[in-house]
Structures are given as C-alpha cells and as structure tokens.
C-alpha cells in the first residue's frame, strides 16, 4: 500500500500574527488519492501533520463559498480543485489576494460583508401584496434577466481576481455589484432607486475598468463583469438625461 501511494508537495503560505512578522511558505508532503481535492490535502495536513494550520471550509461541494484561496496563483475553490491536476509538480496555496491576511489561509472579510449588506441584497417589493392577492408572477424572459446573477455564493474569488479592488478597496467590487444588478434586474423589485446612488458612483459601476478576470474565475458562471458593465451605458444615459429631463425620467 505504502509503495503505491502517490505524494505531492504542497507549499502553504503561513502567517501567524502573534509570532510572524510577515507570511512565509511552508512545505508539506502529502500522500493523496486521485479523487482528493486540494481541500482534502489541507485537511490531511491539519489532521496528521500540523494542527496549527488555519483555513476556512464547510460544505466540500462548491456551494458554501468558504474555501476560496489562491491555488498556484489562481483564485479557486479548494474543494473543486484536484491534487491530481498538479501532480507530479508541487503546488502553492495562499490566502485570497487583495484581502488582508487574518491568519494562514484565512482572510479578513469584514469589508466584503459590509458592502454586501449596503446594497440591500433582497427584493424590495415594487407593490406590496396581501396574501390573498397571490404570488408575484414572472415570465421566463423576466427570470432570465437576473437568473444568472443570482448564482453567487459569496466566495469572493472575483475579488481576488479584481485588481481594481486590490488597488483601492473603496471600490465595491465584482460580486456585490453583480448582486446589486441581480436585484435591480428583477421585475418584482422596486429598490433600484435606493441602490443606484452607489451604482452611479466611482465606488460603484464606474470603478470597474473591464479587466473581466472576475467572470473568468467565478465558479458559478455569474459573470460579474457583464453585470457591472452593462450598467455603464444606462448610468451614462441617466447622467446626461438629468440635464434635459426632470429627475426620475431616466432609469
């Protein structure tokens, strides 16, 4: 058994705030099976090699959005990335880029959570309805306007892919702006006006320079770059219309 077990070297960026001045790479040699994800490799390290290693995880099946990290320089979910793709080479694992490192692979997410709350990521009904009036009806075409953007699992891979967020964290960033668009584009929602003050600002859609890497790394094909950039034309039209039409004429 021991003879046939494959091993892979995993270099993990370590940072223990109470003792390390700055992060450093620590190499672990991990025996693995072909169906092992990077997350399972990290769990092996924590359970059998070094209990001090910290990382976030929960569902192991790409839906909780907890285990986002840089794997060989790419923002990826550790649970849907497999060690066999890197073997026989070693691989490097680090915390998500553009976020401050809390500890080892754990990043500080307060800024993201605060932004997520700020855009009111829930339906603000256009017309309040009583129970006896029945459900809010929606056509398949209306559903398609936002369905894709509703797949976000808040894994923050797109933030690690967004240099504009890294350069200036005042920028609201891809995931949250995509969610803003998701609710604005919902035919049942009437909260667009409340959300668009941020949308029209430099911290909103205009902070994006269309690098588009966010859409490339999204594990749920949300396409934040499209959600953001398709708003620029409307925001620009509204910007100019303010001068010729009464407020509220443009959307």
């Amino acid at each position, binding site marked *: 058994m021991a003879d046939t077990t494959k091993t892979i070297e995993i270099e993990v960026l370590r940072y223990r705030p109470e003792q390390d001045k700055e992060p450093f790479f620590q190499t672990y040699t991990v025996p693995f099976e072909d169906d092992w994800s990077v997350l399972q490799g990290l769990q092996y390290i924590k359970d059998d090699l070094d209990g001090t290693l910290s990382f976030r995880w929960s569902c192991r099946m790409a839906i909780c959005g907890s285990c986002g990290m840089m794997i060989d320089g790419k923002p990826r979910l550790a649970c849907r990335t497999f060690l066999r793709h890197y073997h026989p080479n070693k691989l490097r694992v680090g915390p998500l880029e553009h976020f401050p490192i809390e500890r080892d692979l754990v990043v500080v997410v307060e800024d993201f959570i605060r932004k997520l709350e700020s855009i009111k990521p829930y339906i603000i009904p256009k017309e309040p309805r009583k129970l006896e009036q029945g459900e809010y009806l929606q056509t398949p075409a209306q559903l398609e306007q936002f369905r894709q953007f509703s797949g976000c699992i808040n894994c923050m891979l797109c933030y690690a892919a967004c240099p504009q967020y890294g350069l200036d964290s005042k920028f609201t960033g891809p995931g949250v702006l995509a969610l803003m668009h998701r609710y604005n584009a919902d035919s049942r929602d009437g909260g667009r006006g409340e959300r668009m003050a941020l949308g029209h600002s430099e911290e909103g859609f205009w902070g994006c320079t269309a690098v588009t890497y966010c859409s490339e790394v999204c594990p749920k094909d949300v396409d934040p770059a499209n959600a953001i950039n398709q708003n620029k034309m409307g925001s620009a039209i509204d*910007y100019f219309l303010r001068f010729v039409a009464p407020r509220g004429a443009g959307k």
Partner: protein
Amino acid sequence: MTRSNAPLVWSLFGAGGVLAALVGPALVFVTGIAVPAGILMSHDLMSYQRMFGFAQSWAGKIIILAVIVLFLWHAALRIFHMLHDFGIHPGVASKLICFGLPFLCTVAAFYWVLPI
C-alpha cells in the same frame, strides 16, 4: 455617494473605441504606409490640394475632427486607468495630463480645421 463624472469621458472613450476598430486599421494603412510608401495607392491621394479641398467641406471637417478628437479621448481614459494600474492614483496631476492635454488638442483641432 458622489455621482461619478466618468460618463463624460467614458462616452467619448466608447465612441473613439468603436471608431478606432471600424476605420482605424484602414486609415493607418492608407495615411502611414500605403500612400507614403507608394504601395497600392498613389502619392496624389494625400496631395495638398486634395486634402485642403477635403478639409474645406463640412463632411471633411466632421470626419477629421471625429477621428482626431475621438481617438484622443479614447486613449485618454485608458492612459488614465493605466497610470492608476501602475500605482499613480487619480489626482490633480494625472487628470491634468490625461484630460487636460486631450482637451487642449481638441480645442486646437477645431481652431485649425474650422477656418480652412
């Protein structure tokens, strides 16, 4: 939240980007390669008389202004972003260079083409 003034330059950026894609390569080939080198086209195409006549017509003026001005503003926004990307963040200096210079060039283009 302060409303961004980005749409001002962004709309020119977009128009310039479309124009640069639709006619840019053909224009560069004609004015910079084919006519000067005499490949496929005669030197006459850009003779003083022809160009002067072209710039005298309103259609000619509009085409000349559209190409020069929109190309400049298209480039201006990207250079502004690029400075930011390289760590020179938006400020008075970068705005003066990226938007002040194209503004002066725009004024100059109108000033030079209108009297022709």
